[in-house]
């Protein structure tokens, strides 16, 4: 069957939910970050797919570039925080980092 926009969007959706699942369930902070990266990738696939199928010029791709750049910056800072977390809690299991419990 001719691979159309919906296929790419479906793929992105699947990736998105997998990333989301990782973020929601994984205890290890780094895995959560990986999940986040996966989610961002899914978003990027959508962008590029739209760029190709819908407005057929490069805006989508440029936005994808910016998303990647932002993701990089985010990952950097996030990891710094995680390492700090490790420094304080001697473990990066998120369920232990619940000092803000109500």
């Amino acid at each position, binding site marked *: 069957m001719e691979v159309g926009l919906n296929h790419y969007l*479906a793929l992105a959706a699947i990736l998105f*939910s997998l990333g989301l699942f990782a973020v929601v369930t994984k205890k290890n902070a*780094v895995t959560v970050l990986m999940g986040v990266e996966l989610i961002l*990738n899914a978003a990027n696939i959508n962008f590029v797919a739209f760029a190709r199928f819908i407005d057929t010029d*490069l805006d989508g791709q440029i936005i994808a*570039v910016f998303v*990647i750049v932002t*993701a990089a910056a985010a990952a950097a800072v996030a990891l710094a925080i995680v390492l700090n977390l490790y*420094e304080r809690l001697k473990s990066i299991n998120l369920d232990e980092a619940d000092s803000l419990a109500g």
Partner: protein
Amino acid sequence: MDFTNIAFYIFAALTVGSAGVMVFHRNVVYSAVGLLFAFFGVAGIYVLLAADFIAIVQILIYVGGILILLLFGVMLSQKLTKVDVRTESMQLVPAVVVVGGVLAVLLLTISSTPWKLAGSLEYEPTTKAIGRLMMTEYLIPFEIASVLLLAALIGAAYIARKN
């Protein structure tokens, strides 16, 4: 061109499979490897979507930068005695339900919305075009990106240095 269809399915399978490994595997490093192949798969998808520059950027930054960073993060934050680091996961059932729901929602919207397809971008190099666009139309985001990077650099360095 059934060749690209096959390629799409191959890459899709690769990506989803490796993403699955990343999500469901308990060992963090295996997740990282899974993530590596997921990124590689996504790069392949970009190639199929006629975005060659983005594919390379994807590999360069995600694989060459973020993944390395994550691996470093993993390495630095583990007691090396237990090599295979167990990462339990929690609240599985509710998560499955909710994420399933979100997936359903997304798929539903995708299938239901009438996309206005306007032909497809032909396969031809995009680097020059992106360069030109970057310098003209997207100048402001470009400069802001630099400030963002600066902030991230200083921020992360500061946080890292604190301990």
